[in-house]
C-alpha cells in the first residue's frame, strides 16, 4: 500500500468514526427504548453508530500498524485459486501510466476534477437554464474542454442525445422536466 493511499484510508476511518459517534449521540437523543422497554426510534441508529466507531477504529489500527486483515472466505478462495496461476504479467489490467490517448495520470486527475466541477455547476444552473439546456452545456463542456473532441461532432452528438432524452422523458414518459426561467425548454 502506498503511503498516500494509507493516509487517505486513515482519514476515511477517522471520518467514519466521527459519523458513528454522531449517530450514537443522535440515537440516544431519539430514545433507545420506550417506556415499556421496547426498541424505540434511536435504537438502530445508535447500535449502527457504535458498530461503526468500533469497526473504523479497528481498521484504523490495521492501517497504522499495517497488520494483516482478518481473512474472509472469499480471501481464502481467491488466494487458493490465484496464487499459483502462471505469471502472465499483463493478465490483469493495471492502471497504465499512459492510456491509449497518451494521457498521463496527472492529466487524468485534472480531467476528473473538471468533470466533477462541471457536473455540480451544471446542476446548480438548472433553475436558470432548465434541465435539458444545462445538461447540453455539460456534455459540450466535457466533450470539448475535457476530452478535446471536435466541436462539430460534439454539437451533433449533443443535439441528438438531448433530442432522444426529450422524446423519451418529456414525450414518452411525460416527465415534467424543469424548464429555464424563460420557459423555453
Amino acid at each position, binding site marked *: 500500500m502506498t503511503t498516500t493511499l494509507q493516509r487517505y484510508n486513515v482519514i476515511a476511518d477517522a471520518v467514519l468514526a466521527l459519523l458513528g459517534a454522531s449517530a450514537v449521540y443522535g440515537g440516544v437523543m431519539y430514545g433507545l427504548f420506550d417506556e415499556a422497554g421496547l426498541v424505540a426510534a434511536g435504537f438502530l441508529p445508535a447500535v449502527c453508530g457504535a458498530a461503526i466507531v468500533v469497526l473504523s477504529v479497528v481498521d484504523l489500527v490495521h492501517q497504522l500498524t499495517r497488520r494483516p486483515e482478518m481473512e474472509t472466505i472469499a480471501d481464502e478462495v481467491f488466494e487458493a485459486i490465484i496464487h499459483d496461476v502462471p505469471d502472465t504479467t499483463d493478465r490483469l489490467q493495471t*492502471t497504465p501510466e499512459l492510456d491509449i490517448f497518451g494521457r498521463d495520470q496527472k492529466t487524468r486527475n485534472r480531467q476528473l476534477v473538471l468533470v466533477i466541477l462541471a457536473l455540480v455547476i451544471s446542476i446548480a444552473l438548472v433553475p436558470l437554464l432548465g434541465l435539458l439546456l444545462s445538461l447540453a452545456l455539460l456534455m459540450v463542456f466535457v466533450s470539448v474542454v475535457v476530452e478535446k473532441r471536435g466541436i462539430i461532432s460534439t454539437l451533433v452528438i449533443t443535439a441528438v442525445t438531448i433530442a432522444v432524452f426529450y422524446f423519451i422523458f418529456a414525450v414518452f414518459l*411525460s416527465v415534467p422536466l424543469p424548464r429555464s426561467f424563460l420557459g423555453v425548454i
Partner: protein
Amino acid sequence: MLDNLILGFQTALTWENLLWCFVGVLAGTIIGLLPGLGSTTGVAVLLPLTFALEPVTALIMLAGIYYGAQYGGTITSVLISTPGEAASVVTTLDGYQMARRGRAGAALAISAIGSFIAAILSLVLLMTLAPPLAQLAVGFGPAENLAIMILGLVIVVTFQGGALIRGALMAVLGLLISTVGVASGFSTARFTFGEVNLLGGIPFVEVMIGLFALGEVLRQIRIGAAAPIKARFRDMVISRKEIMQSAPAILRGSGVGFALGILPGAGSTLASFMAYGIERRVSKNRADFGRGAIEGVAAPESANNAAANANFVPTLSLGIPGGATTAVLLGAFTIYGLQPGPLLFETQPELVWGLLVSFFIGNVLLLVLNLPLAPVFAQMLRIPYGYLYPIILLTSIIGAYSVSNNMFSVWIVVVFGIIGWIMKELDLPVAPLVLGLVLGPLFEKSLVQTSALSEGNFGVMVQSPAALGVLLFAAALIVVPPVIGNIRKRRARAVSDRESNSPM
C-alpha cells in the same frame, strides 16, 4: 407447477413482453461490454425508463438487462482483459490469453454456450426451489426474518472478498443510512435536519445510480482507456473437440454457481472463482490454466450465469436480495407497489412465473445474439470513452430526476457518486453498503416486531430453533475462515522452518 408454467408462458409470450425482453437483453449485452457499466448500473440507470410499462413488463426488461450483462461482460474480459463485471474477473486469466493467441472468437463462443446451458439448468432449479422455499418462509416470524437478514449481511461481508472489517463497516453504514427519515412504526424524523425531502428516507434508486453509474464514470476517468484486441467472425468457429473438452466444465460451473448464488448476499464473483478453482484441480488440461485453457473460460462463465439466476431464489422467495443487482431489482419491485417476499408467489403468480419464463426466452435470445454477433458487439469497444461517459452522466442525472420529478434526487446522485468514487479508490466494498441500505427498513421492522412480541427480550432469537440455526451459521462464517487461515499459515511456517533447519 405445470399450471404455473403455462401461466408464465401466457404472460411472457405476449408481443409487448417479448419486445421488452429483447430490448432488455440487447441493452444488457451492450451495457455489460461497455467499460464502466455493469448490470447494477444498467438496471439502476434504466429503471426510470420502465415507469410507463406494466410492472411485469418492466421487470422482464430489467431482469433481461441483468442476465444480458453477464454475457456482455465476458466480451471485455476476453478482448481487453478488463472485466465488465466483477464476476468476469477470473475469465480474464484464460480468456485474454486465448485472445492473444488468436482464439478470442472461440473464447467468446464457449462462454456464450456455457452461459446459456448454465442459465437453462439453473432456471429449472430456480423454478423448482423458489416456490417451496417461499412456502416455508411464509411461516417465518420476525425473529427468523431478522436472523435471515443478519445472515444475508454476514454472507455479503464474508463473500465479497477483501477485508472483513471494511466489509462489515460498509454493511453497517448502509444500515445507518437507511435509518434516515421517519421509519414505519415511529413518528420521529431521524437525521433529516429539517429537510422535507429526507422525511421518506434517502431515496434508494438515486443512491444506486450515484454509487454505481456516476462513481464508476469518475473512476474510469482516472484509470484511462486501454486498447481492445480484435475478434473476427471466422474466429467464432469452435471445434467439436473444444466443445467436448468444455462440457464437463460447463456442468460443474453451473452446479457451483447455483449452489453459491442461492445464498442471500453471496455474489456471482465468488461462484466464478470457485468454479475456476475446482476446474484447475480436476481438469485433464490443468497445465494450460492461465495460458489460455478453454475450460478456464467455460467454467467461470457458466458459474456466474448460474449464480445470477440463483440470486433470484432468495430475492423472490425471501425478499432478500442475492446480490447488488437483485438489490436494485428489489427496489424496483417496491416502486411498482409490489412487496417482494414469500407472499409474492401467492399474490402475484402471473408476475412471478411470467418473469421466470421470460428468463428462458431471454437466454435463447442472448445465445442467438451472442454466438454469431459477438464480434459486432465488440466493435462498440471502439467507441471512445470520451463520447460515452458524458452520455452516461446525462442518463444518470435525467433518470434520477424522473424517479420523483425532484432536483433533490439529482443532488443525491451527485453526493453518492462522489462517495462511490472515493469508496472505489480506497477499496471499500460497495456491495455490503447496498445490501445494508436495502435491508435496512425490513431489518428495523423485524427488529421492532421481535422486540414487541418478546416484550423487549431478544433472547427470543435463540429460542427459535430456525433463527438459532441461521445465527450459528452466520457466526461460523465469520469465525471459521480466520481460524483455518491461521492454522494453514502456522503449518506452512512449520514446514518452511523444518526445511530451512534440515541439513543440506
